[in-house]
């Protein structure tokens, strides 16, 4: 079975802060990690490899330093990788990103299953997975937390709903987006990480020419949404700290709640 796993290197957004003067993101000193949902997708792939046998190709698009994410994925058990890196890919929205990834997948060749994380913690859109599936004309199932069965021409998966879940049979080849909850991503093995860092490691680096796209179709120019502006979310309230002993503070609070007809 040939599995392609889409991963993205992201800043650890729980540590990202905004510079209050410029309104820009402060990225220095912020750790970069493999997007958490993607770790679950990788774990799903590696588990399938262990139970059913599979070859896993990791695909990632990013600036040069994102090669670390690719190496880490190899450390977790991926067999080979394609790293898409080109200045012309920068500034892409999900439309342009899914186009770029889709063209790369067409160049990678045959596959049975594509796994992706549900969403990235920087963009938070959950759009790239489904848009890649649409570009490639594949059936998709999103919010997958368990793969029940794998056959030659279909899989059976569990898809999370707001109030329960569905068991879905999906024809292969297909694309699934994975959410946390089903598995615990393993730590990379040092031995595999070292192999991934060697010159002969099975990691290919491709640019725009390698996947036969034009600059008008990718990056900023190929995007169908434009960022008009970014700003810091406003917090208008100032916490009024209540004073006194616990009993006093609670009494004051109850008075406020009554005043505002909240109780």
């Amino acid at each position, binding site marked *: 079975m040939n599995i392609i796993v889409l991963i993205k290197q992201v800043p650890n*957004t*729980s540590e*990202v802060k*905004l510079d209050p003067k410029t309104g820009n993101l402060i990225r220095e000193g912020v750790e970069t990690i493999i997007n958490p949902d993607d770790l679950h997708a990788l774990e799903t792939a590696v588990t399938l490899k262990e139970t059913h046998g599979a070859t896993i190709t990791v695909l990632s698009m990013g600036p040069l330093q994102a090669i670390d994410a690719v190496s880490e994925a190899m450390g977790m058990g991926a067999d080979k990788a394609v790293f898409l890196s080109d200045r*012309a890919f920068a500034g892409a929205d*999900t*439309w342009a990103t*899914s186009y770029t990834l889709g063209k790369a997948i067409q160049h990678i060749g045959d596959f049975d299953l594509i796994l992706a994380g549900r969403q990235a*913690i*920087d963009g*938070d*859109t*959950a*759009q790239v997975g*489904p*848009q890649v*599936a*649409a*570009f490639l004309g594949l*059936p*998709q*199932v*999103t*919010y997958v937390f368990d793969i029940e069965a794998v056959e030659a021409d279909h899989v059976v998966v569990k898809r*999370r*709903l*707001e109030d*329960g*879940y*569905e*068991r879905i*049979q*999906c024809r292969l080849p297909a694309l699934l987006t994975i959410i946390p*909850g089903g598995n615990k991503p393993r730590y990379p093995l040092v031995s595999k990480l070292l192999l991934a860092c060697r010159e002969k490691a099975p990691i290919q680096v491709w640019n725009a*020419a*390698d996947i*036969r*796209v*034009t600059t008008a179709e990718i990056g900023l*120019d190929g995007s*169908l*949404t*434009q*960022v*008009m502006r*970014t*700003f*810091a*979310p406003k*917090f208008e*309230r100032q*916490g*009024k*700290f*209540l004073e006194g002993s*616990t009993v006093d503070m*609670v009494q004051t*609070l*109850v008075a406020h709640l009554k005043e505002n007809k*909240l109780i």
Partner: protein
Amino acid sequence: MAIWVETDLCDGCRRCTRACPYDAMEIRDGKAYIGDRCTSCGACMNACRSKAILTDAQPRAIPDFSGHKGVWVFAEQRGGELNRVSVELLGKAQELAEELNHKVAAVLIGDQVSGLAGTLIQFGADTVYLAEDAIFKDYRTEAYAQVFQDLIASHKPNILLMGATHIGRDLAPRVSRRVGSGLTADCTGLSIDPDEGILLQTRPAFGGNVMATIVNRYSRPQMATVRPGVMEVVATPDNEGTVITHATRFTEDQAGTRILEIVKEPKTHVDLTEAKVIVAGGRGVNDAAGFGLLAELATALGAELAGTRVAVEEGWIPASRQVGQTGVTVRPDLYIACGVSGAIQHRAGMMDSKFIVAVNKDPYAPIFKVADWGIVGDLFEVVPELTGQLKALCQVMCD
């Protein structure tokens, strides 16, 4: 768009072959030649001193979209019941349509759901496009995406809104690809730009650290998904509307997926977006017993219990009770956060609550920045005290 070498003007100086980042150029018979690795990036053009490299590329122009009219809303239903977010979006759609001088339409897909059309009209829809068939009974990506593709091709709406539910976030990107239009996810704000007349789509990014305003200048319809609980319902009880039935030919073959079973888990399910009062706990609550104290407070207040991602990961509350960037967005009248530090990802899910109370040992906890009233103290003392005082009050008031 093409880029080519005017061989008469080329003097074979090789500046272009050196400038090409893709090894796409070479010299043949003393003249520059562009091979099939060319990405039309234009580096060669910029390097050429003889103006021998030309392109027919035009700067990106904004097309004429005057023929695209209408603000559409996906009327999501499951099991014949309308998802509340659809009605919320109709409220917003009315406002947008009025600014644009367009009409509002709802797209209703399912099996035997025509009865819902009346409700949609009473909450703002001027038209309801109805696609009814047994094959649409339960949501499947390709089936619903096909309906949208057909309807959009026929009627050319200007704006299309969907709820950012599990269905909406599965369907919207698929429709976006099929019709070739830009999509913005999880919008918390929508308005019309007075200068450009286009949709301003505001949403959080980077886990809620940044707000971004996004636009879609070059494609239609302008598509956006919106979180449940963000927009307000606007009733239009006297509204009259038309129902237009749409026949889509869609076969099982095209579906690609089959639903084998739908399993409801009512015990873990709760709709926090409907709650008027919420009591939430975070890491500071420490354990399940601590959450027991919060549950007692919730009972005394008639409130729903909720928590942060940490509380879910520790198993103190089920995932459906998680408030935050990857959880639910809530706007209750009162939100009481106990032992919650107030990380940005959690704040993103509750900062529009009418009144916020925070209880935390740490006076510098970020939660106090969004609280109306803050109590710096041990929640294991404060919460039982509050529960006690509320119960006493109730006894007095209820007698």
